[in-house]
């Protein structure tokens, strides 16, 4: 039985043995990595982080003509205030129109907690359907429904026949998984179960005219060259354009899925010739479904960040279509031009120590990009660890100047502060809300993820270099800040082993 037959996607700690608490050196990681993929016990001191609900909303709020209805307390979903900026700018970049995302909250109160809120949810769905007339309503459940036993799937099943929007349940009870990447599976699970069939069944469409038949044939030809380019919001439009450009060089067309793609066209993904992941952390759950149910093969080995990894990514795709020779020509020209363009920045970068923190795959490939630019990697932190990135550890180990620290943590800036205080890097790249620790220590920082900026492909490599050059040319903001702004940690903590709270959860006091 497929996991898509279940109401809820499995959590990643069970499905992939993903862990969030580990420390080690880079040289051993490739070999030892699997050793950490066990129930890792967690830390005895923790800092707040995010949960799968935030990540899921980031994807759902970027789906056109979709209303996101959060079934939970009024604070679940307030992350959408930040995501709305992405919805606005992302929509503008793709359609020229600026629109706010529409998210709603059932704002559960004490009465709802005591008596249950399935009725309220049902009425909210009806009213949202009538007021906004959306094509899709994603019903996202937070912790509270999980605790009081609301059955959102039954409410949805009962209501679906009487509302015009397609209803998609997305289970995001935050306390149930400590791996927030489960969000990708939760969203894909909802999409996979509810949105992959055409809205109007094809059998009911009027029979085709002669011109129509021709168009259908052309469509068939096009589909043989169509690649699902997976983007769950880790790329902005500028990055999509770079990958579309490279695919076009191979004569291939990109079907970007699922952000900023209309849910009524999602079924197109089931007809593509190939699916390609742009970040292996994100997509395996769905790509397997596309393969098993619809026979669409997939590639999920690479992330096209950095010159070498972009070339490998492109080569894999070309190989699938038997276009290896074309790819070699494109790659040769692209690499030559990009490497030449990067030379101007090298004097400022050469030998400087860089420390990175992000999702596992992104952190590891960005580290390789920075090596290509001339930096020396001095430490990497990643939000979780699973088996997808083992090869990337091997690549980094092969070029590492020292056996630098690899720290798996769902952010936990206290460990980072301690580590940075020891390593004293010249540059830090961190994810959203993950740069302030380094900044307050006076280290020049640059965001490793921002959907308005370019990171991907050859263009991304150049743009990252350009931005880092700017960062390093005048790092006064952070330097000044560090003189006056303190981090909240005790002196005692800086003297302690940075990993002394690992695996201590549940220890006796």
């Amino acid at each position, binding site marked *: 039985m497929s996991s898509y037959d279940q109401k809820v996607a499995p959590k990643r700690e069970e499905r992939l043995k993903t862990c969030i608490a580990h420390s080690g050196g880079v040289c051993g990681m490739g070999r030892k990595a699997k050793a950490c993929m066990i129930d890792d016990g*967690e830390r*005895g*001191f*923790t*800092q*707040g*982080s*995010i*949960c799968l609900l*935030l990540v899921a909303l980031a994807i759902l709020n970027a789906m056109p003509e979709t209303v996101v*209805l959060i079934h939970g*307390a*009024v*604070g*679940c*979903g*307030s*992350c*959408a*205030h930040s*995501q709305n900026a992405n919805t606005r700018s992302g929509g503008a970049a793709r359609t020229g129109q600026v629109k*706010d995302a*529409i998210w*709603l909250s*059932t*704002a*559960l*109160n*004490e009465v*709802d907690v005591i008596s249950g809120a399935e009725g*309220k*949810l049902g009425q*909210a769905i009806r*009213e949202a359907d009538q*007021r*906004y007339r959306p094509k899709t309503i994603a019903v996202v459940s*937070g*912790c*509270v429904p999980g*605790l009081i036993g609301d059955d959102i799937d039954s409410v949805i099943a009962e209501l679906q026949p009487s509302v015009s929007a397609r209803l998609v349940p997305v289970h995001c009870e*935050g*306390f*149930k998984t*400590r791996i927030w990447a489960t969000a990708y599976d939760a969203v894909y699970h909802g999409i996979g179960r509810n949105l992959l069939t055409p809205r109007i069944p094809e059998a009911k469409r009027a029979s085709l005219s002669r011109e129509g038949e021709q168009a259908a044939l052309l469509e068939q030809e096009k589909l043989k060259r169509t690649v699902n380019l997976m983007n769950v919001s880790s790329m902005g439009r500028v990055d999509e354009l770079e990958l579309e450009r490279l695919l076009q060089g191979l004569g291939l067309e990109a079907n970007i899925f699922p952000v900023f793609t209309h849910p009524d066209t999602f079924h197109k993904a089931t007809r593509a010739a190939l699916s390609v992941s742009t970040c292996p952390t994100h997509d395996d759950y769905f790509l397997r479904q596309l393969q098993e149910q619809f026979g669409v093969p997939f590639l999920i080995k690479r992330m096209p960040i950095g010159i070498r990894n972009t070339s490998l990514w492109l080569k894999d795709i070309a190989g699938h279509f038997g276009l290896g020779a074309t790819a070699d020509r494109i790659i040769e020209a692209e690499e030559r031009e990009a490497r030449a363009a990067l030379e101007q920045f090298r004097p400022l970068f050469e030998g400087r120590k860089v420390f990175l923190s992000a999702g596992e795959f992104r952190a590891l490939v960005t580290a390789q990009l920075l090596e290509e630019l001339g930096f020396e990697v001095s430490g990497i932190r990643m939000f979780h660890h699973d088996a997808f990135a083992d090869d990337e550890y091997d690549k980094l180990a092969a070029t590492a100047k020292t056996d630098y620290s690899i720290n798996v943590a769902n952010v936990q*800036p*206290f460990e980072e502060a301690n580590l940075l205080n020891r390593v004293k890097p010249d540059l830090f790249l961190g994810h959203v*809300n993950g740069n*302030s620790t380094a900044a307050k220590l006076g280290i020049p920082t640059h965001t490793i993820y921002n959907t308005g900026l370019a990171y991907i492909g050859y263009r991304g490599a150049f743009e990252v270099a350009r931005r880092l050059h700017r960062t390093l040319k005048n790092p006064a903001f952070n330097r000044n800040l560090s003189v006056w*702004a*303190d*981090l*909240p*940690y*005790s002196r005692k*903590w800086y003297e302690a082993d940075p990993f002394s*709270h690992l695996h201590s*959860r*549940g*220890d006796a*006091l």
Partner: protein
Amino acid sequence: MSAHFIERPRYTCSLGGATFAVNALPGGIPILHAPAGCAGSFAWAQNGGSALQVGGNCGSLSIPSSNLQENEVVFGGDARLRQQVKNTLDVVDGGLYVVLTSCVTEIVGDDILSVVKDFRAEGASIIGAKTGGFKGNAYHGYDILLQALFKDFIEARKPKRRGSVNVWGIAPYLDPFWRGNLLGVRRLLQSLGLQVNSFFAGEDSLEAIRASAEAELNIVVSDVYGIDAAVAFEERHGTPFLATSLPIGPSASSAFLTAVAERLGTAETVLDAALHEGNRTYYKTLEALTDCYQDMDLQRYAVVVGDANYAVALTRFLAEDLGWLPELTVCTDQLDGEEQARLTARLDQVKNVAANLVFETDGSEVIGHLNRRWPRSQGQRYYNAFSPAFVLGSSFERELAQAIGAPHLSISFPVANRAILNRGYTGFGNGLTLVEDLLSAIVNGR
């Protein structure tokens, strides 16, 4: 307004509001007894709503949190909280640690107050508050946090000290202008010669907060936020309170100073001097605008959309100070009948324009309220349009402004499209800042 959902809630939950407030307390360290995602949700809410301000010294993803999982839901989280508090005291330096509960811990029934009590008995500076997210919105959480401070942190003081006052009613981060607004209110009160404790401003200290029961009057610059806390303060420490609206601009500031002086029996000469100085400075400065204001015809109709504080205060400023025509005021908070009555009574007192107040949580419905208030053109040749107009609201009101072809200024949460650190609109001089911001939005294409 829907009875079943809130559209894009313009606040987070009670845990979030309390967390924001602890972030703003001098030396305040929140400890969330919550699943991991709550802290991140608040950081992202601030990122998108608080005009580019996130956190504080121990905010955002630095906030200590027990990060509850299924295990604690099944077996209870008391032991995990005990471990988290002990380690937090080790790892994080702070002046006051505040344990805050979440939906999960409230439903599971963890007894956090007894955990907190044990640590306090050992000498830790720590209090706790029950802020489960389903108990209310972030403004409610701000109130709960104040109540916890008044109950467990501030010391009993008698007798009261003449000339000493406390002020609150501005919720940190939920009001993106909280620093500037608190400072503006402090300056007003200081102009009467008062000694002011305002809890969250840069000039405040934990020592002064601890001694705040010596105040002879508590002043709440809100008709809603912090009122329950004021009642609790009075019951416990015997200090009465005065609730006023947020004093933005010369009219409201004058009324504010007059009301405070009356309650405290401040000498008339002191009050008169403060009123004279405040008004004189405002109008002497405004004088430079006279030509352009007339020549460019800068009077506007206005729609004001805001939280309970701003809805009233901005409408009053426009009607009484700037001479604009705020024809529709929308309060986006979920309020009970008594709170709604208080705001309605306030707006009824606004001079020059008969204000029209609507309670509506959902931004997309505002245009409907406007159309009912000011009928749309029927295609008649001579139509008295709602124009020229201006929209004051949150950044969501950009859609409304675009729909009616009016300029717009984001003031009430969420403020996504401005960077605010020190700016405030309260007081006399800060009223000029508001004039600058409003008129700049009109002339920025000039």
